[in-house]
């Protein structure tokens, strides 16, 4: 049986707008695309020109710094456009789908082959674009030898997709993926305590976790299972991406379909959709956002996800699209003294927080307002209360702001990713942009070290 780690610290925000456990219909649509920024850390170099024929598995673009990191097309058709912005920055690469799903002939990886062969096969199939690394939380470099590979097989973020539901039929693919990854490095899987879907995972060290968000963050799991030391590299990969690899390893096909939860108070029919990576979000969002609502669309969960638009494409690494109230049109009178019955807070000075301590299960409909002005750090211990990691978050953030590399290293910068600070950023009474600070710090550090 798996080891059980109970994490007491964390943040439980009950938000209105969970997805119903049923599947809705969504057409694949004519256009499928990628935003290279979603693959953090790569410098995109297009491999094709507009008009070129594309099959499932044809390389669309690759990392200029590391050509083995390739991003392949999830559909067949023709390359429609490479949209560029200021200074010719690639904003999106769009493929016109011919609905045939013709597959490129890519060699199936040999489970008994050498590590190099397996890496090569994964690289050719575009799978390395889905593997991230710690330190720096960027797309991994295939030539590295990781100490271990970590996978988190649950998600506790507000409104998160239920992994038990979306991976119900993908158990064998998930196992195939792990079998292949285990050839590269020891694999660690973090599962929810009492999981059924991931109960029989083999070939990996399985750890069960019990706790609140962010216990489902892979960074938290690494920190509690086998923390990263300076000089070590750990690869992290999402459960969905393991399934992609499993489909490729087991059946030799590239299938980038995934189940996505449409959640949030402003979404009209909230349920799960079978979608394909890069599919236009308008396929599920058109006529699906409450009428007259001033909504914000988030790719991912409301804490670590990023804002997106209705006509953008389904990003990698997310199994959730959240439609929240924007709130810029709300005028709240004297919020600093009003009891406030309907706003989320961890402080009992806000009435709703006090009430929710008495009646559990109370749900909120939050909007995206910051609800205060940015200040210097005033309150202490706020971050540590919601982060079950053996790291002094506040001191790490200060070291990052000062960009004191020695301090950052000593305090554990190599173990964290911006998403690990999402809960802390949520509760920060000084409204500091912790995820941005950490992202900038990691980028600067990487530049300095490499």
């Amino acid at each position, binding site marked *: 049986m798996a080891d059980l780690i109970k994490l007491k610290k964390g943040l439980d925000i009950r*938000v209105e707008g969970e997805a119903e456990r049923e599947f809705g219909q969504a057409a694949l649509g004519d256009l499928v695309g990628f935003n290279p920024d979603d693959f953090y850390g790569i410098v995109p170099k297009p491999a094709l020109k507009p008009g070129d024929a594309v099959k499932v598995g044809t390389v669309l673009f690759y990392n200029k710094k590391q050509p083995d990191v390739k991003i392949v097309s999830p559909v067949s058709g023709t390359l429609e456009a490479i949209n560029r912005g200021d200074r010719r920055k690639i904003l999106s690469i769009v493929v016109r789908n011919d609905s045939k799903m013709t597959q490129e002939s890519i060699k199936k990886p040999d489970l008994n082959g050498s590590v190099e062969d397996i890496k090569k096969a994964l690289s050719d199939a575009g799978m390395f674009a889905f593997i991230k690394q710690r330190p720096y939380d960027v797309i991994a470099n295939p030539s590295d030898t990781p100490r271990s590979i970590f996978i988190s097989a649950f998600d506790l973020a*507000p409104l998160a997709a239920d992994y038990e539901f979306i991976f119900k039929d993908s158990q064998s693919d998930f196992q195939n993926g792990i079998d292949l990854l285990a050839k590269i490095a020891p694999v660690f899987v973090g599962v929810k305590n009492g999981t059924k879907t991931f109960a029989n995972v083999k070939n990996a060290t399985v750890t069960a976790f019990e706790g609140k968000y962010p216990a489902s963050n892979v960074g938290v799991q690494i920190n509690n299972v086998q*923390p990263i*030391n*300076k*000089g*070590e590299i750990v690869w992290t990969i999402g459960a969905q991406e393991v399934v992609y690899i499993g489909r490729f390893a087991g059946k030799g096909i590239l299938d980038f379909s995934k189940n996505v939860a449409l959640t949030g108070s402003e979404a009209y029919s909230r349920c799960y959709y079978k979608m394909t990576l890069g599919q236009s979000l308008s396929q599920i969002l058109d006529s699906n956002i409450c009428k007259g609502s001033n909504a*914000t669309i*988030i790719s991912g969960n*409301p804490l670590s*996800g*990023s*804002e997106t638009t209705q006509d953008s494409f389904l990003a990698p690494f997310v199994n959730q699209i959240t439609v*929240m109230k924007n709130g*810029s*049109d*709300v*005028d*709240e*009178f*004297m919020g*600093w*003294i009003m009891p*406030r019955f309907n706003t*989320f*807070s*961890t*402080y009992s*000075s*806000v009435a709703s927080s006090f009430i929710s301590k008495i009646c559990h299960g109370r749900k909120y409909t*939050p*909007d*995206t*307002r*910051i*609800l*205060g*002005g940015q*200040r*210097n*750090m*005033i*309150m*202490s*211990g706020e971050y*540590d209360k919601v982060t079950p990691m053996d*790291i*002094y978050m*506040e*001191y790490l953030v200060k070291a990052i702001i000062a960009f004191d590399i020695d301090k950052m290293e*000593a*305090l554990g910068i190599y173990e964290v990713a911006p998403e690990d600070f999402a809960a802390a*950023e*949520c*509760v920060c*009474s*000084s*409204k500091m942009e912790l*995820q*941005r600070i950490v992202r900038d710090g990691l980028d600067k550090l990487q530049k300095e070290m490499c």
Partner: protein
Amino acid sequence: MGNIRKYIDKIKPTFSEGGKLSMFRSVFEGFETFLLVPNETSKPKGVHIHDAIDSKRIMIMVVIALMPALLFGMYNVGYQHYLAIGQAAVAGFWSKFWFGFLAVLPKILVTYIVGLGIEFTVAQWKGEEIHEGFLVTGIILPMIVPVDCPLWILAIATAFAVIFAKEIFGGTGMNIVNVALIARAFLFFAYPSKMSGDNVWIRTTDVCGLGEGQVIDGFSGATPLGQIATAPDATAQITDAAGQAISTWDAIAGFIPGSIGETSVIAIALGAILLLCTGIASWKTMLSVFVGGGLTAFLFNIGGIESAAANLPWYEHFIYGGFCFGAVFMATDPVTSARTECGKYIYGFLIGVMAILIRVLNPGYPEGMMLAILLMNVCAPLIDYCVVQSNISKRQKRAIKK
């Protein structure tokens, strides 16, 4: 709400850059966010749900928590005055309170006008929003001075503390020592005759014609701690302004001479409950101040030192002077206290220890709370350093072991 928003939007350009009144931009912004919660939304890549708490609400909660002590302090100022002129039994509740209110209000006004004036100016100069930290400092400061402290001195102390203890470090959240305590320490060392001794704790003259009368014979304005420090015997007889003995109950309720807000343990306890329930003050710091103080005083009790201060029962140290006030409202200031959870225990404990050490062993200072907290404010980063360093060493050891 719509009308307020419309009106604010209408006058906004006048105060924005290039507008006629742009020199008051920070003040305008301050009032705008005071009236309406800012409706700025999250950044595209940031958290999209924010906690409803902000520094305004935190500071206001502390101010509310201070209210019982302040209101009681006002009443006590009147009570002590009427006691001194021998009319305590004659004067009613409201005339005592009204007397105290009139005596204390100018102090509050002076600290707020001077302090906020500096805050507004600095915010305008730096192009930042006004930080709310002074809301608390501005109300605490009048509460920790004697009622006879002259206003002009208070104004100088406020200006000194806000500029040199806070703004030059970078404003609220960046200061190393508690601003209100620095102001008090400044007063204490620069104007000792107005801050200590037997003649500053009770207002003997009238306020705006209210409470006229002759001071009774045998009047003494010494605080209980002052009496203990100067007691010739090993046990002190603590008396009030009229020469009557002060009971423990009087001291707990707060009917003793002292700084304006510090006397009533009950009123301070009400504030403490609010601060602890709302999670704004750390119970770890608060509790360990009492543990540290109680333990030290107890050791003196059994230590056999022949002085009134050493022989004062350990629990009575809590009810005289500013021990409770300091423990509840000043030691728990999150900015200047230790910031690590483990550090808070050490920090609080040492404050308690130092406060009693100074009270008992230093005949020059009957009250030790102010100096103890200031000293520990300076040491707090050291405590945190040690706590954080243990985490760092652990990480390094882990790396070497591999």
